């Protein structure tokens, strides 16, 4: 097959990971960084070539009757589990995976370049590049997977490399606990994913995406009428699989790990926690979308979870004071937009516009959110703090960063002609088509987005001029500004890509028509949000504080992220650890050991000579043993009767 060279995008990063991981310490920092970046550059070129050949190639079999085909360009049998259940490893090219190739390789390449400047002088620079390569490899493997099992393996690998990268500053306790939190929360979600896979494969006898999605009706009906707790088994399977996606994509209530993950290096946040890994959940639902489209219940769950998360995260983002946390919650909110968009998509409504809109927004969001994070990194680099209070008036000191950040803000707020406007508009169209409730809901969230992004913008670049003392902030080096300029340009033009020609739910060409009623409303709302932010934050004043005092309860609750973390803390520490683990450990130490000790002491005083051999413990052990054996028998007999 012509496109089989695509597999190189997996081989190069994994080779770089091994190379930098094993001999990296022997190289100088500079060599390691440049080698890693060059390898990523080559990967990017190959990924672009593959995606362009896929979209524009004229080879026979790529497009049949106006429908883009899904091409399996590499297919190896890895394990025959049973005759029907065969696990394969391969590379699948279809519109969404080709699009993800572009997103991942672009952002990853930019982050590689940016890190040359940002991570300069850090300990473990070589290790950092090795981990970046590992992450890129896993993420590309995830999107190119031909079957759900392969996807799951790469899914976990992505989790592992994200764990390693968040905990990169392993000397900081906060980074360490954040990496652990991220790992455990997403692993917990993956539990659902795995159970979902097991159920799905059990009924359909296949892991393969193409055979699962080519005839979704048949796949659903294989379960027959099997139900569990009132829902059909397939709904359970799909909901559980979505649970895995919700964990990675930080949907409420599994979002708690993402804000903490900001403890990692900022380029990592840009790559993993803004552009690539966190959209894996969206990608997963999109991948299995034909099946979801048949199962209305699962799709409704997805819509509700997405819509709620969008509002929740936007509300929290309005009052945070750490710039990376504002961006983190804004990411959660934007991903929730994509999820909701998938939830409201159905083939009957405008040819499944929601699906196209979701993927479109994924694409543009990856670009401008990576841009915003990289700008945030440059700012943090300049003022050595994450807190907004340490910033202000930076427009004079960092002009390039200022312009780039402004472009990012305009794009996310949905002002034409920036990229976010076009994709968000399509999402709103899809939402209004499904139900006005979701439309209005998302419009409100879009207004909040404009408000909190410009709050952030003004607080950083305008507001007041704090005394910077000797450390006058200055523009970042070229390695860091180049990615900003590049991504800024992309954020301006990406909206004009005729996305409907490339990615649609039925893979047929779909013409995008701007619906000016919806577009006009959303522009108006965005402008109102921006105007409000301008009034409140352009110059230093006490209006925000007055408002915060007026709505003290709401403000505090939002500032504390509506106490979700405290709730988790309470459940894990107060209930699971304290009520279950501790008593058991106590039981082990006091009752079992204590009984032993007591018996030992009694025997001890009775017979000094044989005290060790006669230590009471063995008797107790044997006693337990016998009781256990008899109990097993008695219980079984009772059950049998």
């Amino acid at each position: 097959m012509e496109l089989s060279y695509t597999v190189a995008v997996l081989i190069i990063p994994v080779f770089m990971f091994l190379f930098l991981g094993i001999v990296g310490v022997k190289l100088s920092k500079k060599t390691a960084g440049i080698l890693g970046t060059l390898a990523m550059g080559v990967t990017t070129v190959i990924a672009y070539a593959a995606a362009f050949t896929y979209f524009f190639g004229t080879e026979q079999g790529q497009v049949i009757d106006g429908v883009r085909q899904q091409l399996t360009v590499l297919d190896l049998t890895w394990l025959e589990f049973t005759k029907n259940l065969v696990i394969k490893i391969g590379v699948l090219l279809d519109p969404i995976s080709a699009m993800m190739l572009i997103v991942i390789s672009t952002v990853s390449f930019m982050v590689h370049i940016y890190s040359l400047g940002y991570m300069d002088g850090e300990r473990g620079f070589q290790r950092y590049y090795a981990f970046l390569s590992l992450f890129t490899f896993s993420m590309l493997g995830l999107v190119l997977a031909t079957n759900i099992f392969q996807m799951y393996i790469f899914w976990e690998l992505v989790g592992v490399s994200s764990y390693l990268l968040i905990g990169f500053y392993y000397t900081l306790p906060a980074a360490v606990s954040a990496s652990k939190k991220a790992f455990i929360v997403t692993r917990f979600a993956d539990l659902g994913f795995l159970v979902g896979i097991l159920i799905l494969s059990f009924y359909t006898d296949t892991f393969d995406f193409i055979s699962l999605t080519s005839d979704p009706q048949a796949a659903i009906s294989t379960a027959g009428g099997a139900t569990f707790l009132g829902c059909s088994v397939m709904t359970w399977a799909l909901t559980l699989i979505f649970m895995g996606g919700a964990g990675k994509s930080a949907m409420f209530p599994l979002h708690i790990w993402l804000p903490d993950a900001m403890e990692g290096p900022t380029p990592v946040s840009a790559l993993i926690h803004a552009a690539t890994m966190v959209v894996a959940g969206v990608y997963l639902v999109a991948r299995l979308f034909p099946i979801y489209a048949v199962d209305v219940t699962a799709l409704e769950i997805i819509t509700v979870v997405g819509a709620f998360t969008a509002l929740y995260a936007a509300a929290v983002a309005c009052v945070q004071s750490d710039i990376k946390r504002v961006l983190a919650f804004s990411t959660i909110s934007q991903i929730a937009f994509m999820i909701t968009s998938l939830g409201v998509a159905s083939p009957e409504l405008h040819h499944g516009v929601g699906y196209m809109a979701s993927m479109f927004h994924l694409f543009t969001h990856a670009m401008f959110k990576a841009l915003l994070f990289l700008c945030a990194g440059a700012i943090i680099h300049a003022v050595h703090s994450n807190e907004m209070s340490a910033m202000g008036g930076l427009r004079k000191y960092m002009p390039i960063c200022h312009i780039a950040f402004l472009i990012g803000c305009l794009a996310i707020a949905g002002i034409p002609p920036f990229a976010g406007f076009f994709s968000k508009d399509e999402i709103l169209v899809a939402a209004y088509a499904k139900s006005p409730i979701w439309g209005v809901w998302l419009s409100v969230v879009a207004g909040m987005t404009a408000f909190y992004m410009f709050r952030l913008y003004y607080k950083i670049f305008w507001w007041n001029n704090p005394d910077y003392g000797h450390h006058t902030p200055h523009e970042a080096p070229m390695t860091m500004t180049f990615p900003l300029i590049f991504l800024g340009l992309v954020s301006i033009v990406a909206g004009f890509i005729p996305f409907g020609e490339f990615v649609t739910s039925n893979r047929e060409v779909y013409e995008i028509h701007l619906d000016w009623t919806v577009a006009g409303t959303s522009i108006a709302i965005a402008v109102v949000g921006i105007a409000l932010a301008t009034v409140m934050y352009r110059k230093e004043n006490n209006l925000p504080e007055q408002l915060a005092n007026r709505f003290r309860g709401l403000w505090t609750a939002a500032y504390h992220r509506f106490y979700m973390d405290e709730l988790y803390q309470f459940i894990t520490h107060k209930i699971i650890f304290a009520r279950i683990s501790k008593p058991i450990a106590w039981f082990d130490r006091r009752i079992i050991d204590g009984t032993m000790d007591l018996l030992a002491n009694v025997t001890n005083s009775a017979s000094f000579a044989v005290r060790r051999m006669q230590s009471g413990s063995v008797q107790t052990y044997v006693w337990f043993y016998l009781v256990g054996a008899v109990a097993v028998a008695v219980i079984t007999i009772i059950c049998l009767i």
Partner: protein
Amino acid sequence: MDYSQFLYMPQELGLLVVFLLVFLFDTFAPKRSQSALPVLTAVLFGIFTVCNYFMLMRGTAFEGMFENTAATFVMKSILNVGVLIVIIQSIKWSNSEAMAIRRGEFYELLLLTVFGMYLMISARHFLLFVIGLETASLPLAALVAFHKKRYESHEAAAKYMFTAVFSSAVFLMGLSFVYGLFGSLYFSDIAYQVMNNTSAMLVVALAFVIAGIGFKLSLVPFHLWTADVYQGAPTPVTSYLSVISKGAAAFAFMVVMVQVFGAAYSKVWEWMLYAIIILTITLGNLFAIRQRNIKRFLAFSSISQAGYIMLGVIGGNELGLASLMFYVLVYIFSNLAAFGVAFAIEQQSGKVSIDDYNGLYKTNPWLSFTMMLAMFSLAGIPPFAGFFSKFFIFTSALECGEMSNYILVLIALINTIISLYYYLLVVKAMFISPDDCSIARFRSSCGERVAMIVCVFGIILTGIVSCIYTFLVEAAQDGTTMFGLLN
């Protein structure tokens, strides 16, 4: 008697040859060359393990008391790999001053217990099975007591001895019930009669039989000896107990329960097994969370691992057997890697607390790396072998598609999350705790390093190289009449 029957037991004979050579060397070799004994044992056993590959012989001997199939052959080969790693691991230790005078006994007793395990696996008559069980258990008591000058070692040995003897007594009582019910101790005779018999007597007999083997597997509630013995015994013996002895018991359990009592499964011991599995996995996990001593920690973790192994029995078919064998193989690599690191550190610095591992990454990166892989594999994180073994064993348990099995697997899955927490505690201590490490940088001995490297390769490759699993499935399907009576 037809002596050619002995040819049906090539692996047993090979093992005896190794044992005799070691014994002769120990007895007659001049004093100054005695220190070559551990290496000699390792080499001989290594050759045996490799030759083993060509020793597949199917057939029965001694009036059907002994049977070799592809499945038993594979089980024994898997055990050999583990034993070889343990032998290599302990080379330096057994040459240390305190041990030097008794190193011969150490290896001889070790090889004898392997012989007992072989008999357990291949026995098709309960008499032979009991002989195997005892041969595999009693020498271990001597091994546990091997630290002559350490009090804990003796206490552990005494505890092990008493519990082992007691469990044998219970097991034999169960067997006498079985004999009373069926009038025979041949597996095949019993298997045909079990179908028509679900009396309370059979339940009691089965409970006692399960208790007897459950002792070796340290299933809850027959596990109480485990933590104390693991902690007190010399570390190579602990790793042997927790991996080899347990693996052999798991194989024997599968063979006995499925082949002999398979017909009574759904009627009698299905729920028994469910209860034991849930208890074993959950309690093992919950106890492990709070352990600070690495050996006690691994003891409880190995208890819960035993519970996962038992899931293979639930499947009760070729897939279950293959998954069980695969699980044991992966478990051998993962747990021996963990014990290898713990052992190297204990040898060097005498430190056994997890708190002492704080910051180990800075002083001993390779040891930390090995330990991390072992923990990831035990916790079942892809793409390490532990994930695949868990996946296979869960799928095999789900294969028959009963709702009760779903719930069981769900509980097991929830437990993997709990276990992830405490396995990560160790990783966290090594990699990210801020303290300066109390363990100085050191170079572990050659044998320890070889053993660890083998384990690391095992952890990374067993999962990915899929032909191993395919091979096990084929072996499980080959000529076994074992599953005919189940379902």
